[in-house]
């Protein structure tokens, strides 16, 4: 997953939807609003909020008729999802990303892995997974072309 530095932002659903819509690539606020079927002004509000927390950045402008509109993208790096309400959406986005990867003929070794572990081991395993993610990130060049997104998360089964 591309993107960065969560810093205490409360990812309520509308923010999260705005954020994840940029996983498809850079877009104007109007583009995001059209994808989500929401008013541009509320998407702009979300983008400003995300930008203030370093989760979205600007990447130039697009010409639309006689006007221009700002283009937003996710920053380089990784996102730490800390709000469990966002988990379902993150899960959905990962599934969607894998489907797209498969559709586009990207490495077939990618797949969804779900492992059930005892509660007392969970924290340690999560730390090791995070270390693995940092190792993977260290392999990437700045601005490199990321082809497959990995989603690392722990959750408790009912």
């Amino acid at each position, binding site marked *: 997953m591309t993107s960065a530095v969560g810093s205490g932002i409360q990812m309520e659903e509308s923010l999260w939807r705005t954020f994840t819509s940029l996983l498809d690539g850079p877009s104007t606020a109007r583009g995001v609003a059209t994808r989500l079927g929401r008013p541009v*002004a509320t998407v702009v*509000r979300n983008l400003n909020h995300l930008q203030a927390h370093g989760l979205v950045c600007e990447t130039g402008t697009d010409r639309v008729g006689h*006007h221009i*509109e700002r283009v937003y993208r996710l920053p380089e790096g990784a996102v730490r999802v800390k709000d469990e309400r966002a988990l379902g959406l993150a899960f959905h986005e990962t599934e969607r990303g894998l489907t797209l990867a498969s559709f586009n003929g990207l490495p077939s070794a990618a797949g969804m892995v779900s492992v059930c572990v005892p509660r007392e081991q969970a924290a340690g395993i999560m730390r090791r997974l995070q270390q693995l993610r940092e190792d993977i990130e260290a392999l990437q060049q700045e601005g490199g072309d990321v082809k497959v997104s990995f989603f690392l998360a722990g959750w408790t089964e009912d």
Partner: protein
Amino acid sequence: MELYTTGYLDNGLGFLIAPRPGAHLIHLAAYLDHGVKDEREQENGISHLLEHVLFNPNNLTGAQGKQWQALAKSGARIEAFTGKEHTRLGLSCLPRDLPKVMAFTADLLRNPKVTKQALEHERKIVLDEIHRKRNRPEFLWTLVEEALYAPPYGMSILGPPDIVSQLNLKQMRQRALDACTPERTRLVIAGKVDSSTVRLIEEHFEDWSAPPLHTEYRPVEIVPQLIGVPSRSERVTLYLSCPGPALGDPDRPAAEVFGALFGGGLRSRMFQRLREERQLAYAAQGGSSHWRRSGYLFMAVDLARERVPEAFRTLMELIQEVQDSPPGEEETDETREGFALKALQESEGPGLATKLAQHWLNDEVYFPTRAARMYRQVSAADVKAAAAYLNPQQMAMVGIGLDEGELADLLEVVV
């Protein structure tokens, strides 16, 4: 028939002379292609403060002061204005005083004087103007532009007090030199005047030189936002706006006609629905505003706090309705004729100079008869197409009496 004399001097200064039969006075206006559009965020308000410093006659000293005193004794009047796209210095005088007024105008523009005394004097006045306008709801409609556009068009003309307080003498002097150049200047002279005035223009401005302009053209940026100005008042004012065509856009006359049909006057659809049929608001109006580089359609509703959700929903339904069943030929006929008449009426009043200048800054010549003809050519189909500019999804909102969250909730629920 409208007959103008237009031209450019070699230094880039443009002039337009518009004789008006039966006029008793001459109106000379120097329009500088300089305004908020030329400001950076950290110097927002500099154009307006500069206009005060340069053109308030009370600040004029030395030869300029004496020139003005002599003109004032003859009844000459002076006024100035700063907008998003231009700064205006206007003078009205008797025809016999035109040579003196031309000399005075040339001196003001060619030798712009920014003194420390004038700067500090005007700064206090401008800061007071800012506070006055920020604290009175009737002036807050300008927020509609701040809600729709990114800087510089989304910045206020007056600027924030903290920036205006910090603008220094060096910045102001440099800005005066940047703003007052022949290339940026358009002279519009209307009234009891004839084409021989060209010689007077040449005499005073031909040897004016300045380094060529290298300003980068940057299209206007649209960023619809929500601006709330919360209060505990029982009254709320909503201002809504959508991007629209610019002054020179072929869609503009139809957008104006549509704006008037939708929100102009007591018979408009907005007024009829919100006030007369549903009694949801005391005032409900709309229209359009057009600059050289952009334009917008706006709606304003003044109402009781508890009626906001219903009124907003009703307004959104009305927008949908007007797009599904737009005004027909008959309804359009009457409104476009009203605009045609207004264009012709303007040619007989002082508003003509402003219209002429607004277009002349775009290097276009404005003829009231041609404008009237353009309005008369607007068809019901054109109005239907213009209705599409009113798109709630791309709407900016200002709520006087509401906070940003309340505005977001309104918009999310309805759109």
